[in-house]
């Protein structure tokens, strides 16, 4: 097989891997606990089934991110960062994909599925 064909096949394989991976990532189940992590440090652990509607302000080097919890869901409400990707991600949905604000090193993610809690005593 010519080199071009080999390379083309590699491209297709990577492509299919991308699809498979994307589907896998979207398929990952999740519990109800979320972690808000900055610079690798967990700032908050929150159980979405019991958390009250609220907003959390998190500062990083003078820039603020505002996280909103409403009706058992969580999202990045506002962010002082150039690209606003994190805000456009909307409500945290997938078990594997966190909401990430790269410039401010902030991420909202579901905690490991080992913590799958059936209910919260409160």
């Amino acid at each position, binding site marked *: 097989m010519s080199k071009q064909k080999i390379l083309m096949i590699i491209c297709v394989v990577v*492509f299919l891997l991308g699809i498979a991976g994307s*589907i896998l990532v*979207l398929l990952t189940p999740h519990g109800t*606990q979320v972690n808000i992590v900055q610079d690798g440090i*967990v700032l908050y*652990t929150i159980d979405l089934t019991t958390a009250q509607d609220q907003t959390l302000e998190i500062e990083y080097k003078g820039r603020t991110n505002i996280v909103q919890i409403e009706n058992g869901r969580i999202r990045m409400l506002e962010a002082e960062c150039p690209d606003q990707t994190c805000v456009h991600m909307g409500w945290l949905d997938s078990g594997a994909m966190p909401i990430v604000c790269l410039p401010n090193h902030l991420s909202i993610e579901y905690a490991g599925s080992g913590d799958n809690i059936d209910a919260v*005593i*409160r």
Partner: protein
Amino acid sequence: MLQSKEEKCMKRKFNRIFLVLSGIFIMILAVSSLVMVLFFPELLSFGTSDNGEATKELFAMDTYITMTAHGWDAETAVAEAADKLTELEQLWSVTEPESEIYAVNQSNGQAVSVSSETEDLLSFALQMAEKTKGALEPTIYPVLKAWGFTTEENRVPSDFEITELLKNVGYERVHMEDGSVWLENGIMLDLGAVGKGYAGDLAAQILRDNGITSALLDLGGNIQTIGTKPDGSFWKLGLQAPFSEGTLGILEISNKAVVTSGAYERYFIGEDGKRYGHIIDPVTGYPAENGLASVTVIADEGRLCDALSTSLFVMGADRAMEYWQLHQNFDMILITEDGEIYLTDGIADMFTLDSYHSNMKVNVIEDE
């Protein structure tokens, strides 16, 4: 060269077209499946149809209730349980003018006949008041009202007001006879401290009567479980951290009820900057303040958990531990305001702190 140049050319062209077309085809497949999955996440839940699982959510007794039952008759079971809960709300609410408790409170010393459930609840409450030497006080309602915890308009009552109100507090002045209740003058009943737990017990009983052997009831944070999870594993319950959002650990149980009480649930900050919680010490008339942040009780019956979680909170850590030594028909987890944990040896192995709270000191209370 066995092929003419034209044939080779044609072959190459076909090869190329073939490749390009297959490439486009794959791309369309990929993009469309991505889009489908992004917009229809339900497509991803193949093979998770649960046979014989039913969940019911309702709002009753001022609280959000979720019940999940596993079993063939789960659907009917939870529906029946939900009806019962709504019925009980009608009977026991202090503020509903149609409720039995309301009628008793307005009766001005007259005897009011009540249903058997109310009778059971009340006699249980009075028994527990006796056992806890008044730490559980079903007649504390006027004081609770004075602090504004019934209306959300909180205020700090004066010492004089509290002393006056305390004159009308005392469970000994509630009388029951032959299905009727009468209160001495000025007494008002509020069974909120035990009502939810009791209701949970009745709902769980209905599920059991329907043959359910695995269920989880969450009555605004009061948990009742039947059996284990369908796969045989214990129910994993997160324990609310009293000082912050989120949980501080996991309690694994089966076939037990668990209730937590603490000032952190409802409180207000007074003008003096002090924090006033909603659990009133019936002796002083002030919010109980003895170093405990939360009390969690685990027992077979929700009513016991409910009654004890409030009264043990009022008692404080030392008296709570004494009480446990004496009775031992339950397990408990005490969290002090200093962030220390005391738990009874019966459930010591069932409780694990999560990684963010692993530095909390844990003490096991042993049988003396």
